[in-house]
């Protein structure tokens, strides 16, 4: 167990260092921008999956948590322009608390009501942000990103590195949860709440843990958003696409393991980036929608499950 953990952490560290080294070598900014978006979806999909995949509660409000992270950052930037890591921490904190709150309010309900409540939450928060003129309100506001940053040749590369590190960290968090007693307890809740409670699993605590961690990761992913787009306004920060994608990606990749959302986010996210600059975006949406419905109907365990099945079949043939 611990040997596996060590190896995983080493790989994670190597990936972070690797993504830093990439920035010293490669110039083309487009790749950084595209990679940033894909990595941002890795974080969101992984975060969604901690609650949705591991624990079995479908969150339609990803955009709310994401945007709360982004707007926490905007408010801070407007106030005293703290360094990025402060934005990340605060964005995570606010969205984590939001997750805790909404969890406390609704998790005693049937799963479906939780989902509807998250949907409603996104709308209410968007309204509130739209009416808060300090962060630009409905009109939005332009955010000047710092002109330079030590060790990086420009801010885009720095943002890419930050998001790469966040992606690695969030996948690592998901992995640690999955492999720990917490993750096993979450799986028990997903399978049967009543039985889980009778086996000694503190279901309310674990569910609140899941909403908090999931929300916090989404908030952290949102914190650098305003620096990335330079201009932030509620409709784009609260866009339903975040909810659809962060749910579709794990569904396509597979929801029960850390690998599923990663694979889903990388594949679908990359495909979207390519489609944005090649196909028309209607086709882009059509593809995501069809993939989502197709996978849910035909391959409910996602790509990871599909590969597992194929491998099992091949192994069976060899034997």
């Amino acid at each position: 167990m611990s040997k596996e953990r060590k190896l995983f952490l080493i790989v994670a560290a190597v990936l972070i260092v690797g993504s830093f080294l990439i920035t010293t070598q490669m110039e083309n900014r487009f790749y950084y921008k595209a990679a940033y978006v894909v990595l941002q979806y890795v974080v969101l999909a992984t975060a969604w999956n901690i609650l949705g995949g591991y624990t079995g509660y479908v969150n339609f409000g990803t955009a709310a948590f994401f945007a709360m992270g982004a707007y926490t950052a905007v408010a801070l930037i407007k106030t005293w322009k703290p360094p990025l890591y402060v934005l990340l921490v605060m964005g995570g904190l606010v969205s984590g608390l939001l997750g805790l709150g909404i969890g406390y309010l609704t998790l005693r309900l049937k799963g479906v009501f939780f989902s509807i409540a998250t949907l409603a939450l996104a709308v209410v928060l968007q309204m509130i942000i739209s009416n808060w003129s300090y962060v630009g309100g409905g009109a939005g506001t332009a955010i000047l990103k710092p002109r330079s940053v030590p060790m990086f040749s420009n801010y885009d590369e720095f943002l890419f590195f930050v998001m790469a590190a966040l992606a690695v960290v969030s996948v690592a968090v998901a992995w640690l949860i999955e492999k720990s007693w917490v993750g096993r307890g979450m799986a028990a809740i997903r399978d049967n709440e009543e039985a889980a409670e009778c086996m000694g699993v503190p279901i309310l605590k674990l569910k609140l843990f899941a909403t908090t961690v999931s929300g916090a990761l989404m908030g952290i992913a949102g914190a650098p958003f305003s620096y990335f787009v330079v201009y932030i306004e509620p409709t784009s920060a609260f866009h339903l696409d975040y909810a659809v994608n962060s749910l579709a990606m794990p569904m396509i990749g597979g929801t029960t393991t850390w690998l599923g959302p990663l694979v889903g986010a990388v594949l679908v996210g990359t495909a979207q980036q390519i489609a944005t600059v090649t196909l028309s975006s209607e086709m882009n949406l059509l593809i995501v929608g069809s993939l989502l419905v197709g996978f849910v109907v035909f391959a409910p365990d996602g790509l990871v499950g599909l590969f597992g099945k194929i491998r099992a079949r091949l192994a069976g043939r060899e034997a």
Partner: protein
Amino acid sequence: MGRIIKHVILGFALLLAVSIAFTPAAQAAKEVKIGFSMALTGPLGPAGKAALLAMQIWRDDVNAKGGLLGRKVKLVYYDDQTKPANVPGIYAKLLDVDKVDFIVSGYGTNLIVPALPIAMERGMVFMGLFGLDANAKFKYNNYFQIMPAGPDPIVDWSRGFFELAAKQKPRPKTIALLSADAEFARNAVAGARRNAKKFGFKIVYDKRYPFPGTTDFTPILRAVKAANPDLFYVGSYPGGSVGIVKAAHEIKLEPKLFGGGMVGLQYTAIQMNLGKLLNGITDYWFWAPEKTLKFPGIEAFLAKYQKEAPKQKLDPLGYYLPPFAYAYVQLLGNAIEATKSFDQAKIGAYIRNNTHSTVVGDVKFGKNGEWATSRTFQVQLQNIESNKMSEFSKEGKMVVVYPEEFKSGNFIYPYAKGK
């Protein structure tokens, strides 16, 4: 253990595949490439598509004459889906992968601002298409914006409306302000608020409505009616504009002057739907088939546009955005020709320092790349008798009542008289 390593390798293989996918095809020889993002889907999609058509017409016009400095023009564009988050990636791709020679903006403030820092970093001339004060924070000197708002765009935008109001006898005293809760409308109303103060009108109602998400405007307009304003300035988007006009007629809301910043009333489909309901409304306008606005080349352009538009299900008349979409690339092209150079700094300086003749008239830029003087028309809709399209391509329906210089008919006051 081995599994993790395998996954990592898999991941890198994937990354590699991705970068191959993004590698551009072989460079076509000797074209001048102009790159931009455009809203082809999403809320701004319809207008964005029309703008694209206008730009394509310009490209064909230029190429028919032999191109720019002997090189053919090629447009490279991607759909930003009206999502600001897509814009930075698109411009990075245009510059680093497609290696375009020039960039111009997409349509609308939200989609211009995310691209501006990129243009700044690369020191490129950046033509803007309908951005409202987009450069206020950046103050980039090579940014030029084609919408005729004026040097202080947010305030100048509605100045005409207020100047008209101030001239009436007896002088109106009170005003109600209503805006959609989104970028343009809020800015427009913010400007109106300042103008109201400047002209000494008392604000008796000042509220925002959610956009999108408002189904019915009746309760809102009743609240306005209860406040009984002389003037009613509205900042709204197409969906809301229609709802507001209809609800205003239903509850017989009759301020003395009504309109201002309502987007959508300039669109042919909406005009055809509202028909007679439009009469008497005074709204901002950019171009109308009035005798005072026959700028050189505009009629030829519109003829080409109107031939193609129905095929693409675009606004069939195209008076609103297309002439300006044509003009902002026309202006860039003319600058290239005039300087006989592809040097960004030279072209920027030329645009900054000269007056340019375009299909939307003479353009001179001032502070922050906005027009040196405001030329936002106030148009009053008059004598509309039916819902037919031909109704709106005739002279005398969209009467320019401000500024004096372009005035094409008489202003009818109060609103109820024009109804």
